[in-house]
C-alpha cells in the first residue's frame, strides 16, 4: 500500500495522520494486506458469506413506549450542546447557524 493510498483511506476514515504516521502505516498495512492475501488461495466457489454467526433470527422487541434515557442525560457527555441538541462547527463554509425557538 503506497502513501497516496494511505492518505486516501485516512480521508475516508476521517483520520488526520502525520507524515510519520503515513509512512509507518504504508509499511504496516502493506505487510498486513500481504498476509491477508493468503485468502486468495482458498477455493470459495459457491460458498455463501457469513456475516453473522447467529443461528437464531434477530429477536425483535415489541414497539412500545418504555422508559429510556432522558434527552439531557443523552447529551450530557457531548463536548458541546445547547437546549438538548448536539452542537457542531459549520458543516458548510460561510454559514453560521444560531438555534431558533
Amino acid at each position, binding site marked *: *500500500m503506497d502513501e497516496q*493510498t*494511505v492518505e486516501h*483511506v*485516512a*480521508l*475516508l*476514515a*476521517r*483520520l*488526520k*495522520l502525520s507524515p510519520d*504516521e503515513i509512512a*509507518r*502505516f504504508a509499511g*504496516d*498495512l502493506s*505487510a*498486513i*494486506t500481504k*498476509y*491477508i492475501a*493468503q*485468502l*486468495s488461495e*482458498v477455493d*470459495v466457489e459457491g*460458498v*455463501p*458469506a*457469513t*456475516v*453473522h*454467526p*447467529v*443461528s*437464531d433470527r*434477530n*429477536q*425483535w*422487541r415489541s414497539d412500545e413506549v418504555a422508559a429510556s*434515557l432522558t434527552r439531557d*442525560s*443523552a*447529551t*450530557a*457527555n*457531548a*463536548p*458541546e450542546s445547547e437546549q438538548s441538541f*448536539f452542537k*457542531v*462547527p*459549520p*458543516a458548510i*463554509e460561510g454559514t453560521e447557524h444560531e438555534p431558533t425557538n
Partner: protein
Amino acid sequence: MDELLNIDATEAARRVRAREASAEALTSLLLEHAQKTEPAVGAYLRLDIDGAIEQARAIDNAIGDGKDPGPLSGVPIAIKDNIHVKGQLTTCASKMLDGFNAPYDATVVERLRAAGAVIVGKTNLDEFAMGSSCENSALQQTHNPWDVTHVPGGSSGGSAACVAARSAFISLGSDTGGSIRLPGSFCGVIGYKPSYGRVSRYGLVAFASSLDQIGPFTRSVRDAALSLRVMAGRDVMDSTTPAREVPDYPALLGDSLKGKRVGVVRRYLDEMPNREVADAVGSAVTNLEKLGAEIVDVELPHAEYGIAVYYVVASAEASSNLSRFDGVRYGLRKEADNLLEMYKQTRGEGFGPEVKRRIMLGTYALSAGHYDEFYGRAGKVRTLIARDFEAAFEKCDLIAGPCAPFTAFKSGEKSDPLSMYLCDVYTIPASLAGLCAMSLPVGFDKAGLPIGMHLQAPPYADAELLSAAHALELTLKASVDRVPAIA
C-alpha cells in the same frame, strides 16, 4: 494474604449468605489487598472504594432484614473499562473517551447487581479492546502478577490480572478474537467466552459486533458457571440474544467424561515449538481420557486462515462501529473551523496507533474496488471455518488444545503488529464460528508462568463445556493450585 481472599466466589457468597462473613468485611479486605498489589500490577484503572463499601453494606442490611440478595451476595467483581457502570467513567483505555460518564448500567452489570454482587472497579484493556498484551492501553500499563516483567495478555489484561492477584473474585472481560481466553491463559485463571448470543452486549462499547461477547474471569469453573447463569439470557436491548432457556449451569457440572468424545487437532501439539506448553496440554488431554472420554483426532483445515479472516472482518466492523467517535456526542473534541477538520483532528488525536491501524485496514477492506477481494472473500472463508467445526463436532462433543502458542511474553517484546496478531491463532476460529470456549489453567512452565488449555464446544453447548472443564479441573488441583507471590 488473608485466607478469605483465596476462596472462590461461590464459597464467598455462601459465607455471606450464611452470615459467616459480612459483605462489608470481605469488600474491605479485598480493597486493602488491592491497594497493596496494584502498584506492581496496575490491573485497575479506577477502584470505587466508597461505592463498593456502600454496596456491601446494602447487601449486609438486606441479609439482616432476612432477605436473600442472591447467588453472588457480597462478591467483589471488577468490570473491564469498555462496559458501562452507571455514574462511572468508561474510557476504553482511550484518550478518545476522556471524561465519558456512563449514563446507564450495562445489562450484565445490572444482572450481577441483582444477584448481590459488589462492583469494585474498572480494569485496564488494550485501547478499544484491540490488542493481545494490554500494552495498547493509552492510560496505563498492566503487568502479569506471576512475573511483572511480562504482559498479562489482552485485550482484557486488567480483568485477568486482578483475578490472578486476588484483588477481585470475578471480573468481566470482552472477547472478540481471544480477548478473554488469551489473558486468562497468560494469568493462570479461567477465561470464559460464552456462545455468541448467550450474553447481552448492551452497555459494551462495540468493537466487532458479529464477534463480541462478554464473559467472566474466575478462579474456579463453578464460578464461571454461576456467573454465566446470572448474566445469560434474553435481553430486549440486544437483538442477538434469543429467548432460549438458560440452564442451571452450576447444577449441571459433572465429575466424569464417560461417554464423551474429545477432539484433538494432533498437529497443533506435535508441531508446537514451545514443548512446555505442548506437554502440559498433552498431559491434560491424558487426564480427559482418564476421566472416561474417548479421544478422537479431528482436523480443522481452514482454521489456519482464521487470523487473515479475522483481521478483515473485525477491522471492517470496527471501522464502522468506531465512526461514532467523531467529537460530537461523546468525549474528546479538537476544535476546528469546519466539521470535516474537526472530525479528522479529533479522531487523529483521540485514537492510538493500533486503533488507527485497524480503522485504516477496515476502511480499506470495505472501500470501492477492494470490498470483494477482502471483506467478501473473508466472509466466505469464515463459512468454511464454521463448516470445519460442524464436521468436527459430528465426531466429538468438545475440542481440546492449546490456548496460545507460548506463555506470557516480556513487555515490549512484540513491537511488530503482525507478530502480535499471531498470538490469537488458536482462539480466533471459535469466535468466527460463534462457539463457546474457555481457557483453563493446566500447569506452569519452568519460569513459573501459567499454561492454559483451550476447550471449545458447539454454539449453546455451554453447559456441556463447563461440565467437562469442571471434571478436568478436579484432576488438576495439585498441579495448578498456586497463588502468585505478589498476592
